């Protein structure tokens, strides 16, 4: 069975690795479009933080309230947690990372800089924020997730460079970080060692069909036959699916990141999140500050106002950052979906086609379990997780509003 995976981002490369480790013959085709979400990701692995809306979700919510985004989500009193199953999914996926890290290092020689013990700290600035974080904690109470409420003093003890102008924080000890670029690189190298073919710099221009079945993909470098097609094309997934006359509701959601010079390592102890931005120090020492949430098609320009806003948010949280040098910025196009759940697995209309997309803000942490789910579907194995809610056909009879701007 020849499997073609289109899209070499986090999901695509992990899927390729998982299938290759199972002995499948996989061809990974990637076109390095500007704005590829994985290379624009800061690499936070925040299953709990994101699930309850305090990771990138807070900034998402803030821009929702200000009207710069229009997606049908519940009410507007504060960031809403997504359905519990999503948190369970992310937490379960996060558990794969230690073993995956080891395997990838063994096969590829690359260490993907998975950290444990960093944790995610959401910093509370005002009473309003304190109120809604409290409601989120109440929601979390009934689960067995590890979450701590910290006083302002505790926040500063753990994070001495953080502003003293705060009301405390919520700490998620199980939420950590990885290097998403190395994750992809390691998966690709490991996969090729295990027999996969990697076809970079190649754009899929069409999909060949025989009735309902996909027979192959046309590219600017020729035709690739396949028995199974996996769509891991991220923000470009809808375009790819269109090539076989199928609509999946994936749309680009742009986010920007600022990157500082490399600073002495571990001056920031936690990954930080505030209502303005998130701040992570990566293994190399660079501090990443993100991220905005905008719908503007596939445009990857970085608007000056957004950079100014992110920089101001970082300075507010960590005053010393005022003197740190910003080296670069970039933007990425996250693959957004209307209900923020990923789109994984088969579709009735195309028996040998499988989705592996829609990672939105949690694509990196969700990658391992997403890949296992897709692999299980392809190989007819038992599902490692109830993935019914992630099937594309959930949108079949619903009118979906895809935001265009």
């Amino acid at each position, binding site marked *: 069975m020849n499997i073609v995976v289109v899209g070499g981002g986090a999901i695509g490369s992990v899927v390729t690795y998982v299938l290759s480790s199972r002995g499948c013959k996989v061809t990974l085709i990637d076109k390095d479009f*500007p704005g590829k979400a994985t290379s624009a990701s800061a690499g936070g692995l925040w299953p709990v933080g994101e699930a309850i809306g305090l990771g990138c979700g807070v900034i998402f919510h803030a821009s929702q309230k200000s009207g710069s985004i229009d997606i049908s989500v519940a009410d507007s009193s504060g960031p809403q947690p997504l359905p519990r199953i999503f948190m369970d999914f992310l937490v379960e996926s996060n558990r794969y990372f230690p073993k995956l890290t080891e395997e990838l290092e063994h096969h590829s020689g690359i260490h993907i800089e998975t950290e444990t013990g960093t944790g995610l700290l959401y910093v509370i600035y005002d009473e309003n924020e304190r109120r809604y974080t409290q409601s989120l904690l109440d929601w979390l109470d009934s689960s067995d997730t590890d979450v701590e409420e910290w006083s302002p003093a505790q926040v500063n003890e753990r994070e001495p460079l953080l502003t003293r102008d705060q009301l405390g924080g919520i700490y998620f000890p199980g939420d950590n970080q990885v290097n998403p670029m190395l994750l992809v690189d390691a998966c690709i190298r490991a996969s090729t060692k295990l027999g996969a073919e*990697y076809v970079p710099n190649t754009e899929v221009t069409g999909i060949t069909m025989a009735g309902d079945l996909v027979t192959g993909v046309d590219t600017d470098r020729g035709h690739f036959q396949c028995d199974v097609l996996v769509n891991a094309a991220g923000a470009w997934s809808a375009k790819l699916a269109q090539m076989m006359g199928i609509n999946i509701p994936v749309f680009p959601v742009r986010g920007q990141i600022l990157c500082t010079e490399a600073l002495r390592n571990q001056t920031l102890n936690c990954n930080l999140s505030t209502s303005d931005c998130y701040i992570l120090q990566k293994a190399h020492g660079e501090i990443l500050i993100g991220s905005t949430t905008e719908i503007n098609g596939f445009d990857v320009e970085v608007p000056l106002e957004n950079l100014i806003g992110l920089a101001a948010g*970082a300075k507010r949280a960590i005053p010393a950052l005022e003197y740190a040098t910003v080296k670069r*910025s970039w933007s990425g196009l996250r693959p957004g979906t209307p209900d923020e759940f990923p789109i994984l697995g088969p579709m009735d209309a195309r028996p040998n086609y499988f989705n592996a997309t829609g990672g939105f803000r949690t694509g990196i942490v969700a990658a391992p379990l997403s890949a296992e789910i897709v692999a299980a579907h392809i190989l007819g194995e038992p599902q490692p997780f109830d993935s019914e809610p992630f099937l594309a056909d959930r949108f079949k009879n619903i009118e979906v509003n895809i935001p265009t701007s």
Partner: protein
Amino acid sequence: MTDDLLIIGGGPAGMSAAIEAATHGLVCTIVDESAALGGQIYRPLAVKPNGQTPAATVVRGDELRDQVQQLSQLINIRSESVVWGISKGNKFAVGKEGEGTEILEPKLTLLAPGAYEFVPPFPGWTLPGVMTPGAAQILSKTMNISPGKRVLIAGTGPLLIVIASQLVSNGVEVAGVIEASRQPDWLRLAIRGYRSWGLLREGARCLNTLRKAGVPVHYGRVVTRAEGKDFVQRVYHAPVNADWYPDFSGEQIESVDTLCIGYGLQPRNYLAQLAGCEMQYVDARNSWLPVRDRDLWTSQPGILAAGDGAGVAGAMTAESEGQLAGLVAANKLGKIDESAFDRLRAPIDAKLSRLAPFQKAIADICRIRPGLSSLVDDDTIVCRCEEVTWGEVNAAIDHGGTTFRSLKVMTRLGMGMCQARFCWPAMSRMVASKKNCPVADVGPARPQAPIRPVPLGLIASIPKVPETCE
């Protein structure tokens, strides 16, 4: 007050543009990163002259600075300031440390950022004491400071003998000049004359100074490695064939404590790219240049480009292009009518035409040849900032990394403080050579804001809204 013309870069092109535009009544702002105008080549003296005749470039720079000063009611200078970001639609984020950022929205803009040196990687090029010829020139010419006790100058281009003779005149021991191109090419240039007598005379004068001081000029050779503990102590050079591939069996060693090495200039093109200008790779110039029409307009409405930043062609061409840009701006804003414009531009066009063949001939002689890509070994650092070696990049290319983005992501090449300015020009050639494809296909390094590293506080500052005076 909204500026009529924002001029980014205060070198020969920028100053000339400001003078011309202001002469026709345009309100101009020059933004420059340095404390004084002049760019690189027209830098003012940093210290009082030591009794020697100041260099012609200092004199010319002073003249232009004076002219700008005389028009100060129309020319506003923002020194020690940097345009760190551009939004399409001609909004420019200008920052100055200690003062924050302002967003300017001029009617017209001239990009005149100039050029910097091309240095391909070779073993030992990161050692203290290895610097560009320009760096040595700044020390010597503007500060009367010697770059070292015994200096070797190497690379290609007319600047080498200029700098060598300046160092000699300042009492520095120059071991020699190692020029990659062949002497007959230069002699042919002299014989044909190209109506640039001034430049030829200058070249002859420099060669004479070197001859009198006993400084040898070796043609057809390149530096192959530098060695030393903590700073350079020995430099190896070897003869090259027509494609500049060295014949290592002919290697010679020079004991020096300073190596000034540069293979010509390349334009600073990040501003043009960030502004969204259409770029093209010009093989003959080894650079990505903004596409311009004969009025110096780029593909972006309202944006002009002039000087070395739009194509390296020397200070005199830069001055004339700047002048032309100022004229074009004045015409565009209705300060001079079409017939006046045609009349005034004629002598500028004539001068540019006169200068062009000589500049082109020099560019041909000094064109970067593939042999410069063969100097590295696996341990050679190719990204100075991130200390990435050729071995690492080579492995990544084998693994499918062939664009700036993919190599950056796989190896960290280009992720450092110089924002790929020093690694990518050489690396794009090496990728092209390895993949057997044209350099144009590999693509330029793509800049993002901030176009120059700036303190976060500069970006975080709330932009001041410029006063409108209406």
